[in-house]
């Protein structure tokens, strides 16, 4: 038997009830993503690509179909078990950074560590190391408001990697950045991917998608 893919979606549906009318957001999506891939989920807004990312990131549950993460069906897991999986196996990067405004860059990177069993001093060392890796060794004590957009997104990327997850999910990571900064961020992602992390980026931007090794087009809730 060949080894399981990191992510395997089988006939996944997602339906929301909006004012009593069921609205299908995803229809019969089947997708496999192997460990170490760098995938761009592309598509116009409203295509369902963000919902797909949320399901992959265990923030949302499919209405129908199966999701196997590392060969393990996650649909039966409790909310707390999903939290634990997210904490240890998945890192998130968002369009609007979502840094805690009153915490320093270092404390922001340490955020996933609050919910991890790893010892505090070890997490701290790793956070400092990661911030240095994204080029912010001299900005560790800065608050988000003292950082540029590109710097904030680097903090967010360092944060996503704190617990050394297999999978990094990015939802429009360059959506609020200019093209030069976008390119810098995407090459950081490529670097992270080269170190063995699986990366899935949702974007509608062609330039951003071009950094990925594989492109998946989402349209009208299905994969083209």
């Amino acid at each position, binding site marked *: 038997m060949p080894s399981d893919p990191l992510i395997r979606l089988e006939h996944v549906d997602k339906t929301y009830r909006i004012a009593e009318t069921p609205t299908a957001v995803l229809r019969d999506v089947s997708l496999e993503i192997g460990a170490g891939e760098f995938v761009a989920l592309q598509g116009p807004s409203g295509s369902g690509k963000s919902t797909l990312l949320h399901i992959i990131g265990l923030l949302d549950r499919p209405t129908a179909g199966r999701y196997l993460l590392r060969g393990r069906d996650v649909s039966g897991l409790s909310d707390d078990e999903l*939290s634990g999986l997210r*904490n240890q196996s998945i890192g998130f990067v968002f369009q*609007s950074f*979502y840094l805690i405004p009153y915490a320093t860059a270092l*404390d922001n990177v340490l955020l996933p560590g*609050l*919910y991890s*069993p790893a010892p505090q001093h070890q997490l701290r060392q790793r956070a400092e190391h990661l911030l240095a890796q994204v080029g912010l060794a001299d900005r560790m004590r800065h608050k988000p408001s003292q950082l540029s957009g590109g710097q904030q997104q680097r903090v967010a990327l360092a944060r996503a990697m704190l*617990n050394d997850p297999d999978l990094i999910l990015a939802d429009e990571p360059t959506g609020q950045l200019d093209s030069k900064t976008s390119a810098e961020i995407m090459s950081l992602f490529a670097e992270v991917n080269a170190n063995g992390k699986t990366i899935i980026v949702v974007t509608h931007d062609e330039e951003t998608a071009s950094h990925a090794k594989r492109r998946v087009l989402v349209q009208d809730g299905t994969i083209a």
Partner: protein
Amino acid sequence: MPSAASWFRTAPSPEALRLGRSVLRAQGAAWGALLAYKLRSAFVVLAVALGIAALTIIIAAVDGARRKALEIVEWFGPDAVLIFGGNIENRAVGQRTLTLTWDDARAIERSLPGAYLVTPMRAKQAVTLRYENRNMVTPLIVGTTADYAQAWNWPLVEGRDITEEDVLRSAKVCLIGDAPARELFGDESPIGKVILAGDLPVQVVGRLAYRGFTPGGGGVSVDDRLIMPLTTLTQRFNLERKYFRGLRVKFLEPELMEDHLASLKSLLRHLHKLGDDMPDDFSVISASEVLKFLTMITGGIMVFLGITAGAAMIVGGFVLANLLFLSVSERQEEIGLRKAMGATSLDITLQFLSEAVWLTLIGAVAGMALGIGMGQLLAKLGLLEIRLSMKLFLLAMASAMAIALVFGLKPARSAAAMDPIEALRGGK
């Protein structure tokens, strides 16, 4: 089947370790937020502090009142009663109040079992005292029979008590209270000196110890009086000679006070020839009745303070709950983010509850400081006596925690129940 050893294991379970870690790490998150929202935190602290301050005063005052009550029993003497002419309950109908006579006093002393010291009480108010070039007005000259100091459990610091002979001879002698002694003599000893009470020269033979304010509040000092033989007082100041305003009786065996009171009452009724259907024409007051009266007065203050404290605490709680709800809705983005990063509902609940607990604990400390300050002010004004204790500290802390848990749980739970995706969107 769990092995027997596992029932006695001393190492904490992984669940307990995980909870401990969660609680510990939630404190960092909580403090970050508290410092970030300083004004809001200050409001909660203030609201809680007011509640705790009121609570502090009430507890301190209750303890103070209890101690005061004990002092009163001591001062009044658990073995003594006061008899007043006239019936307190019927005074409004204009009943005669001069009903106690020398004969009554003698009869009680002779024929009432257990009674051993009967001291009639008569007094002259507002008399000017003079010594050399100094003078002051004493609010009260008290007439007494022999052994005033003993009868009132009021020690003399100098000199001697009024004697039987003083009373028989209507001797021009007096005991001097602490206040006039200081006023007229300064640091000198007053013993043997002759002062003028009104126009009457009297020799000071004894000095009463400092006693402070009368129990029961009101800030009335008992130290500014002069004591003189009853006979001297009635003859020289032209007072009614037959009747007394009051009589003080001391009994042996104070544990039989109930019986003493009953026999005292029936003796007086007999002496006054009162029929079975007639009300008493006298009133008997014992230490326990003074206590009852005092409890009634302080009880009123306690109820008022209690309601105030309760209301203030509830207001504090609501302020806390409201600001936490505001905080939760404003920090949706943070909550969504924390959940995405792996925070469980418990983690989020712990964080917001920790914020609430820290705020109320700081409020409690501030409130206690405020309460102790205000209590001391009230004590200075003679309105209350306060007493501070460890119990007070623990009770204040416990109520602060209770406020945090009762009023903080709902907002904390609502934060924990948020859907991470919705919360992240709501933060935009």
